[in-house]
C-alpha cells in the first residue's frame, strides 16, 4: 500500500503565513454559526484548545491532480463512525467536487502539520467541520481566481460549477484538473476573504440520504471505504503486509502490576516456527500506555507464536501488584455499596438535602451497579513496527496517533522526529484504541529485530483480560417527594475508580472530566440537591469506553427518575418533564462543572428546552401512553452528553418464562447541525445495539485480580437475535445551535431505557447490570 504522505501544495504558502492572515481576520464573521472564535494559540475552548489545535490550510488537506482527481486528507481515525466519508464529504461539497472523482487519503501521525488527531470525545466533526469547509472554500476560490486569470475576466464573473469553473457570459468552462497547476501558484486567500457556500448551494452537507427507518432514500453519496470493505480489500491494522515480517504474541501478567518471576521457554522454542522469546519488563503502576510486561514469543506466523506462548512456563510474582491480587468483584461491589451509605466529597450542593429528606412525605432510595466491561472491538489490538538505524516506523489502528508516536519515541529513547506512525483503518475502537500500549509493546519487541517488521497480535483473550476496563460503579440515590409526589430533594453518591489512576497515584475520586459526564451536569430542577463522591480505589487498568462515565451516571439517574415517578404515581414522561422544569439554559459552571466537554459554555450551555424536545419527540414517535397488553411495556430514558441530546424509548415484551423481546426502539437525537445525517443514523442504530449488550449481557468480573471472562463465549456482546426488531431514529432538525458530538451520545440512555421498559412490562426493577438471568422465572 502507498503510505506516502507528502502533502502536495495547491499554493506555496506556509502555515505560519496563513496563520498571520488568520490573526488579522479575527473580527470576521461569515455567519453566526461560522463564528471562528479565537485563533489556536489563544483558544480556551473547542478545537483550538486541543493539543495541536486546528489547521485549515488547503495546501495541507486538498490536492488536485491534472486529471481532475481530488484527494482530500482525512486527519481523524476511522473506526466505524464514518468520519473518512463524512469529513471528506464536507470538504468535497464546499469545493464543488464530483463525489465520484474524490479520494480520501489518511494522514500520518503529525500534529504539527494536521492539527489535533486524537480521535475521541465525539469531537471529529464538531471540531473539524469549520476548518475543513474553510480549507475547501479557500481551494475553490483559488480555482476561481485561476480561471479568471486564464480568461482574463474579473473573478466575480466566474461561477463555480461541479468539478469545473464556468464563465456564463461566454459559455467557457475549465475543469478542476485544468486549473490545478495555475491555482497552485496563487496565494491562499486570507480567512476574512473566504466565502462559504450558502445552504442552498450544498449538495451533501445536512442532506438526508441512505436508509431512513427502513426506507432507502438514496444510496449516494457512497461511503469512501464501502467497496473495499465488502470486497475484503480494506486495510486494517492486522492487514499490513510487509516483506520479512515476524509475528509476535505476549504472555502478560494476569494480575495488574505483577511481574515475571521466572520463565522456562524450552518447550516454546521447540514449537515449529518459533524464533525467540523476549522478556519484557513491565513498567509497573500506574501503567499509562506502557506495556504490561511479560514474555513475548516471536515466530514465523501468528499461530506458531500463539502455540509457542501456550508452551511457556511462567511463574508470576504478584508482590509488585499489591492488593490488586486480592481484587474480587463481588467483594468490591459490596465495599462500594457500604461506602455509599456514608457521605463523600461534596461535588455540588444547593438547599439542605438532609432537612428536606427528613421533611419529605415520601422517600425513594435505590442503589445501582454497573460492572467492568471490555471495549472488545472486533479487530483485537494489533500493530506492525519496524525499528531500523535509530528510527521507528509503525502501522497501527490507533485513535491517538500522537500518543502512539510519543510512546514509541519514549520507549526507544529516540527523538519523535524519528518515529513515523501510519494510521490504518480501525476494526472498531470504542476507546480501547485510544490507548496505544499495544503499539509501544510491538516497538519493544521490534527493538530486538533490527530492520525486521514485527506484527504483534493480541488474541481475543488478551483483549478482554487486559482491557483498559470501563470503570465499575455504584451509584446510590435518595430523593424526597412532597404530598403531591413532587421532588423536593435529590441526593446522589457516585463511586467509581478514576481513569486518572492510570496516569498518577490513584486519586480514588472521580476527576472533573468524569463527574462532568452527566453527574454534576444533571439538569433536574429540584430545590435541594447534594451530589457526593465517596472514594473508590482502582485495581485494574481503568480506561475510556465509549461514552465513558456517562454510562453509569445515565444508568443510575434515568432509572431512579423512573422509580421516583412510580413512587409519585405519575406517568414517567410527565414526571421527568416536570423534574427538568421549563426550557432554560444551564451554565456548566453553575452546577459545579468546569469542563463542559472542553466547549465554550456560551455556545454549549446545557439546554433544557432541547432535552425536553428529544423526550417529547421520542415518546410521540413511540406512541407513549398507549395501552399495552400484559407483559409488554414502554420505557424511556434521556441524557445530555458530548454536547448533544438523546432520548430513547423501548417497546419490549417479557413472556411467562422471562424471555425478553425488544420490539422497537425510538431514538430522538439532537446534535445541532447535521453534517452527514446518514452516518448519524448509523451511529444511533449501533449505539442502540451496543447499549442493549451493556444492559443485558456484558460483564467482566475479577477473582483474585484475574479477569474471569476471556472470549465471546463468556463475555457476551449482542448478536443479531438481540437487536430490536425495529430501530427508528428521529433526528431533530436544529441547524441553529452549535454542532454536537455523535459517536458517543447515543449510548448512555439505552440501558436505563431498556430496564425501565422491562419494569413497565413486568414490574421487575433492575438495579444491577447486566440483567443476565434476572428475568428468568425460578
Amino acid at each position: 500500500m502507498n503510505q506516502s504522505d507528502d502533502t502536495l501544495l495547491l499554493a506555496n504558502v506556509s502555515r505560519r503565513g496563513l496563520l498571520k492572515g488568520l490573526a488579522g481576520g479575527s473580527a470576521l464573521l461569515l455567519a453566526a454559526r461560522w463564528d471562528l472564535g479565537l485563533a489556536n494559540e489563544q483558544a480556551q475552548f473547542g478545537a483550538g484548545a486541543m493539543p495541536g489545535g486546528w489547521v485549515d490550510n488547503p495546501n495541507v488537506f486538498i490536492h488536485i491532480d491534472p486529471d481532475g482527481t481530488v484527494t482530500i486528507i482525512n486527519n481523524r481515525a476511522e473506526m466505524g463512525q464514518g468520519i473518512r466519508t463524512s469529513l471528506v464529504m464536507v470538504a468535497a461539497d464546499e469545493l464543488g467536487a464530483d463525489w465520484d472523482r474524490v479520494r480520501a487519503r489518511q494522514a500520518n501521525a503529525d500534529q504539527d502539520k494536521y492539527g489535533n488527531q486524537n480521535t475521541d470525545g465525539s469531537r471529529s466533526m464538531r471540531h473539524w467541520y469549520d476548518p475543513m469547509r474553510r480549507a475547501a472554500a479557500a481551494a475553490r476560490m483559488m480555482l476561481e481566481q485561476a480561471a479568471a486569470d486564464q480568461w482574463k475576466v474579473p473573478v466575480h464573473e466566474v461561477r463555480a460549477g461541479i468539478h469545473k469553473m464556468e464563465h456564463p457570459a461566454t459559455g467557457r468552462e475549465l475543469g478542476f484538473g485544468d486549473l490545478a497547476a495555475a491555482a497552485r501558484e496563487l496565494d491562499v486567500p486570507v480567512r476574512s476573504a473566504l466565502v462559504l457556500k450558502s445552504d442552498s448551494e450544498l449538495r451533501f452537507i445536512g442532506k438526508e440520504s441512505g436508509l431512513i427507518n427502513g426506507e432507502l432514500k438514496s444510496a449516494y453519496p457512497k461511503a469512501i471505504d464501502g467497496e473495499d470493505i465488502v470486497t475484503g480489500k480494506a486495510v486494517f491494522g492486522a492487514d499490513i503486509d510487509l516483506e520479512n515480517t515476524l509475528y509476535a504474541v505476549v504472555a502478560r501478567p494476569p494480575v495488574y502490576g505483577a511481574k515475571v518471576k521466572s520463565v522456562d521457554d524450552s518447550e516454546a522454542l521447540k514449537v515449529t516456527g518459533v524464533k525467540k522469546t523476549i522478556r519484557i519488563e513491565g513498567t509497573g503502576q500506574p501503567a499509562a500506555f506502557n506495556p504490561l510486561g511479560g514474555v513475548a514469543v516471536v515466530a514465523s506466523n501468528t499461530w506458531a507464536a500463539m502455540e509457542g506462548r501456550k508452551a511457556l512456563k511462567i511463574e508470576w510474582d504478584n508482590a509488585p501488584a499489591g492488593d490488586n491480587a486480592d481484587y474480587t468483584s463481588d467483594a468490591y461491589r459490596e465495599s462500594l455499596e457500604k461506602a455509599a451509605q456514608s457521605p463523600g466529597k461534596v461535588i455540588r450542593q444547593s438547599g439542605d438535602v438532609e432537612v428536606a429528606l427528613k421533611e419529605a412525605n415520601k422517600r425513594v432510595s435505590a442503589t445501582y451497579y454497573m460492572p467492568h466491561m471490555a471495549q472488545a472491538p472486533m479487530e483485537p489490538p494489533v500493530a506492525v513496527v519496524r525499528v531500523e538505524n535509530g528510527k521507528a516506523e509503525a502501522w497501527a489502528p490507533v485513535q491517538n496517533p500522537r500518543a502512539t508516536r510519543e510512546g514509541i519515541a519514549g520507549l526507544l529513547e529516540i527523538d519523535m522526529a524519528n518515529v513515523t506512525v501510519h494510521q490504518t483503518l480501525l476494526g472498531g475502537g470504542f476507546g480501547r484504541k485510544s490507548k496505544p500500549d499495544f503499539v509501544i509493546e510491538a516497538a519493544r519487541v521490534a527493538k530486538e529485530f533490527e530492520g525486521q517488521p514485527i506484527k504483534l497480535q493480541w488474541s481475543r483473550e488478551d483483549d478482554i483480560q487486559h482491557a483498559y476496563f470501563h470503570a465499575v460503579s455504584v451509584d446510590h440515590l435518595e430523593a424526597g417527594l412532597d404530598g403531591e409526589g413532587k421532588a423536593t430533594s435529590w441526593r446522589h453518591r457516585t463511586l467509581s475508580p478514576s481513569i486518572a489512576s492510570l496516569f498518577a497515584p490513584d486519586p480514588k475520586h472521580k476527576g472533573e472530566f468524569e463527574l462532568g459526564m452527566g453527574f454534576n451536569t444533571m439538569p433536574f430542577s429540584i430545590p435541594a440537591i447534594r451530589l457526593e463522591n465517596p472514594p473508590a480505589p482502582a485495581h485494574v487498568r481503568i480506561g475510556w469506553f465509549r461514552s465513558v462515565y456517562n454510562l453509569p451516571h445515565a444508568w443510575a439517574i434515568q432509572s431512579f427518575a423512573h422509580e421516583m415517578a412510580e413512587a409519585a404515581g405519575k406517568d414517567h414522561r410527565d414526571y421527568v418533564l416536570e423534574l427538568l422544569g421549563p426550557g432554560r439554559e444551564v451554565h456548566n459552571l453553575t452546577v459545579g462543572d468546569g469542563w463542559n466537554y472542553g466547549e465554550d459554555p456560551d455556545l454549549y450551555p446545557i439546554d433544557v428546552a432541547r432535552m425536553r424536545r428529544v423526550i417529547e419527540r421520542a415518546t410521540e414517535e413511540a406512541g407513549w401512553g398507549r395501552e399495552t397488553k400484559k407483559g409488554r411495556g414502554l420505557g424511556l430514558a434521556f441524557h445530555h452528553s458530548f454536547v448533544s441530546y438523546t432520548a430513547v424509548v423501548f417497546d419490549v415484551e417479557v413472556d411467562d418464562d422471562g424471555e425478553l423481546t425488544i420490539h422497537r426502539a425510538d431514538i430522538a437525537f439532537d446534535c445541532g447541525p447535521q453534517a452527514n445525517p446518514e452516518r448519524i443514523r448509523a451511529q444511533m442504530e449501533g449505539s442502540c445495539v451496543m447499549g442493549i449488550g451493556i444492559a443485558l449481557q456484558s460483564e467482566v468480573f475479577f477473582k483474585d485480580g484475574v479477569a474471569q471472562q476471556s472470549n465471546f463465549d463468556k463475555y457476551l456482546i449482542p448478536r443479531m437475535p438481540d437487536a430490536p426488531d425495529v430501530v427508528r431514529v428521529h433526528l431533530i432538525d436544529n441547524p441553529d445551535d452549535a454542532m454536537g458530538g455523535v459517536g458517543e451520545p447515543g449510548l448512555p440512555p439505552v440501558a436505563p431505557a431498556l430496564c425501565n421498559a422491562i419494569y413497565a412490562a413486568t414490574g421487575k426493577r433492575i438495579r444491577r447490570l447486566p440483567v443476565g438471568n434476572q428475568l428468568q422465572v425460578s
Partner: protein
Amino acid sequence: MINLTINGQQHELDVPDNMPLLWAIRDVVGMKGTKFGCGIAQCGACTVHLDGVATRSCVTPVSAAQGEITTIEAMADDAVGQKVQQAWLDLGVAQCGYCQGGQIMNATALLKKTPEPDTQEIVDAMAGNLCRCGTYNRILAAIERAADKEASS
C-alpha cells in the same frame, strides 16, 4: 506439505497439519480479507466457504480444508455474492467494516442454500456473526434486499 485450493488457485504450503486455515490464509498465503476475531468460532469474522458451506477458518485445521475454499476476495466474481455486496453498499451496512467480510460470506452461503429466507431464518443463520458496531438491523435488511433481487432475477 499441504495443498489448498483457494478461490480456484492451488497453493502448496509448508505448514503443520493442525495450523488453522485462517492463519494459513492470512500469514502464509497472504490474503487479508479473512479476519481474526476470536479464534474459537464465536464471532464469524473468519468465515470462508468450504465446498460452499460457511466454515469458521479459525478452528478448521488445514488438513481438514481439503476442498474448494472460497474467501471474501472471490465474492465479487460470484453471482450471489455480488448481489449481497451490492445490497451492503446500497444500505450502508458497514461501520468499521472489520466483521463485514465474514458477515457477507455467511449471508451468501445462506442465500445459496435458501434463496428466499424469512426473517427468522436470516436471524438464526446470522446469529454466529458478531458485529461490535451493532449493524445487525442493516445486515438483516441487506440480506432481505439481496434475496428479493435474487428472487426477481
